């Protein structure tokens, strides 16, 4: 019998936790959520458990029909997100480290330069807070960031932050992004490197 999980109105991470619990007790469940984020999260979790997922949208609601593979056991210790995934670099400031601003600025330039020479590149670079100043016209690291971008590194720049500093029109590298993309990319990462 299909078990139904009504996770409407529940805040993250509750829908995923409810899904996980239901899958431990039943092989076939239907999860109802009312936000795209919850839908994405539940879907990603189910797929990471190797379940079959069918999605149906009814108005505001998303129904996820989830079927556990016959042989698999959903272990209670199983991570809700994939353990392996891309390297994501998070730059949360225009300076590297706390303390002296001038030094921090040099270290950041130095770091981003070195990134271009590193043998292992991040798949995505997420830039937020004062870090967004690195991605606008006049930034000392613009050329290095552009080079990374040209080599296929995805650069997500926080739109809220660009707006806050009123430099949205000066963005010179990367794509303006939102908290959904940022959260999703971070949670889907195999490894996060934060500067």
């Amino acid at each position, binding site marked *: 019998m299909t078990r139904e999980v009504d996770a409407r109105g529940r805040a993250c991470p509750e829908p995923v936790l409810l899904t996980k619990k239901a899958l431990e007790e039943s092989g076939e469940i239907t999860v109802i959520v009312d936000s795209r984020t919850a839908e994405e999260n539940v879907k990603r979790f189910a797929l990471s458990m190797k379940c079959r997922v069918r999605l149906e949208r009814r108005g505001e609601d998303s129904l996820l029909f989830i079927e556990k593979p016959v042989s698999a056991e959903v272990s209670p210790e199983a991570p809700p997100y994939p353990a392996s995934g891309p390297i994501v670099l998070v730059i949360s400031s225009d300076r590297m480290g706390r303390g002296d601003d*001038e*030094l921090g600025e*040099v270290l950041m*330039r*130095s770091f981003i*330069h*070195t990134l271009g020479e590193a043998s292992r590149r991040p798949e995505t670079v997420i830039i937020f807070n004062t870090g967004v100043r690195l991605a606008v016209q006049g930034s000392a690291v613009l050329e290095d960031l552009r080079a990374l971008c040209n080599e296929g590194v995805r650069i997500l720049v926080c739109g809220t932050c660009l707006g806050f500093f009123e430099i949205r029109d000066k963005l010179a590298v990367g794509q303006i992004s939102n908290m959904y993309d940022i959260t999703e990319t971070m949670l889907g990462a195999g490894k996060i490197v934060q500067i």
Partner: protein
Amino acid sequence: MKGADYCVMLFDSVSSTLLAEKILKRQEIPHKVIPVPRHISSDCGVCIRFSLDLRNRVEPALAGKVEFREICAL
């Protein structure tokens, strides 16, 4: 940028490097502050990279204002 001939100028301190950078910036001499390449030193230092043909502009620009340790070809 690859394939160009560069050299790096090493200093005894980060503050000297930054001072030199300010001077070069003011004189509009193209350069870049980069970490000291591994094969030159294992210290976590920064240095100034510029193209070899600018050497004859860089040295006089800094003369008497900031001391550097050495210039290495890359």
